[in-house]
């Protein structure tokens, strides 16, 4: 998989947010992203996994420059997005789209579906105005909605249908890469499967690549080819999904693995139990962020940040156990 040409390359992206000063507390900074490096090949689906608050969503948004990264570079198809001037960026945005978690917040409540899609088509001059109705019907059909949906407002749809509308909006500009930010997390399991099937079909038909942000390892296994595990703003392990989930290297990945439901209940759980809370990102632990929760922590884990070790087979891990 690593031999394929990368579509998106992220080098050392960091982002800190200032936390408003409270009385009696020092001004804080949250390191939402700490030196994140990853890449996505053409036609690949990369899962970005981690607990709530670990910076997954910030990562997705920083790669699209919806949030400006503090340092680091994001390259898309050989072009540096981080230094792209606004007009160039606007053109590039046609190729980079995003689908959101909450289908109730991701659509303008005062805009009809047809207006929403027509606006995108006209801003990017995708096709002549006369072809808008046909193109809109086509987009709706592609996401499995009837053409009659065009004349309706978002509140007239169910959660799953709204998610389809969000996908139609993302597709309307003909993207190459879609960031799916917990795109199915807010949906019922049955609807989840429908949406995942839709995304998979669209990927095949349009040769899309996905950055699939989720906390659900089951979805990652089902949907992604490669995954990156994130803990408190840092990538701790990357690798092909099957290897990463079947034989996790990083103790955190093992813990996540142990915490997610096992399809076969007879299979014994050999892995470590989940212990402890996620530390505050305001004041992350020294060295390896994971050491307070890690059953295998050594002294060095408290002092030095582990470097990334290539493990062969496209796997990499940032852990002193492998250093």
């Amino acid at each position, binding site marked *: 998989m690593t031999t394929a040409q990368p579509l998106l390359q992220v080098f050392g992206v960091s982002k800190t947010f200032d936390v408003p000063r409270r009385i009696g507390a020092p001004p804080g900074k949250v390191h939402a992203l700490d030196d994140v490096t990853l890449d996505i090949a053409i036609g690949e689906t990369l899962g970005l996994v981690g607990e709530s608050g670990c910076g997954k969503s910030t990562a997705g948004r920083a790669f699209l420059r919806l949030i400006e990264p503090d340092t680091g570079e994001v390259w898309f198809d050989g072009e540096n997005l981080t230094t792209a001037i606004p007009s160039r960026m606007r053109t590039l*945005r046609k190729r980079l789209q995003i689908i959101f978690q909450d289908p109730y*917040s991701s659509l*303008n409540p*005062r805009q009809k579906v047809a207006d929403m899609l027509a606006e995108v088509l006209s801003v990017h001059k995708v096709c002549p105005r006369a072809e808008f109705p046909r193109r809109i019907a086509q987009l709706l059909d592609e996401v499995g*909605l009837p053409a009659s949906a065009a004349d309706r407002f978002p509140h007239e749809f*169910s959660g799953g249908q709204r998610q389809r509308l*969000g996908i139609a909006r993302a597709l309307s500009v003909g993207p190459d890469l879609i960031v799916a930010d917990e795109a199915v997390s807010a949906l019922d399991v049955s609807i989840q499967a429908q949406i995942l099937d839709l995304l998979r079909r669209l990927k095949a038909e349009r040769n899309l690549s996905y950055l699939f942000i989720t906390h659900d390892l089951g979805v990652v296994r089902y949907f992604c080819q490669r995954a990156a595990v994130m803990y408190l703003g840092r990538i701790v392990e990357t690798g092909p999904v099957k290897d990463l989930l079947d034989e996790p290297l990083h103790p955190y990945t093992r813990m996540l693995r142990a915490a997610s439901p096992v399809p076969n209940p007879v299979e014994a759980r050999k892995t470590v139990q989940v212990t402890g809370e996620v530390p505050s990102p305001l004041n992350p632990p020294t060295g390896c962020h994971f050491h307070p929760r890690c059953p295998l922590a050594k002294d060095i884990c408290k002092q030095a940040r582990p470097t990334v070790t290539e493990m062969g087979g496209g796997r990499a891990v940032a852990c002193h156990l492998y250093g």
Partner: protein
Amino acid sequence: MSAAPETLAIRPPAVWLRFARALWRTATANAAMMTGIALFLAVVIVAIGAPVFAEVDPLDQDLLARLVPPSPGHWLGTDAFGRDIWARIAYGARISLVIGLVAVGIAMVIGSALGILSGYMGGWVDQAISQATNILLAFPSLILGLMVVAFLGPSVPNLIAAISLATIPQFIRVSRAPTIALRERDFIQACRALGFSPLRIMVRHILPNIWPEILVMGSLWLATAIRVEASLAFIGLGVKPPTPTWGGMIREGFEQILNSVYLALFPSLAILVVVLALNMIGDGLRDALDPRLKESKR
């Protein structure tokens, strides 16, 4: 398509129609708002049809009928120059309403534009606009209006400018806060991801979601604008006499208060009616638009 789409819900009416219906429901259920609307409409009709409702010219002096109390010939009596008070109130309503409506209209447009800009852009733009707003808010609107009129001189356009300036900060505040809340919503982020320009996002995606709040504020500040105009006229900074204005009439009546109370009483009542009516309407609008209040009333 891997599975049949879920069935579509029954189609409700367009947004503005739902808004109008919500208004109508609130108005009919809300006696105060109904009264407010009726009173305000009555004032508007009197102002528009002043020549019909008052057959006497408001500037005609009848020195033989000075300070006449309310009587069949002069419904509300006459002033120190024998001018008909009813006619002067009817024509004065025009000045009050025109200055109030135009001033608040201008303030609404400029104020919401600045508020949305401030809330959406953030950073130094927000800092600059917010600081300017705070400075303007530090002055009571009457004092601010007074300074502007004293500087530019009293005339209808200058009064409108003065009252607009005093009201703009209110609209900046009322539009900035919801804009900040909306900015983080996913659909605005989606607009950014789609490469929409900030102007397009502000006009097409933020404004349509906050205008009801702006409208409520408008109705409440219209009352204040009319009051400020009257106050300026009272202290002699309003539209120049002999043009009838409510504030000016109260001032003239004040000088004659020992000879006849009616001169000051009736224009005061007119202001009271308009301000009360607008506040009733504004409160009703706010109830109609605030879902939390609606829930608790059910």
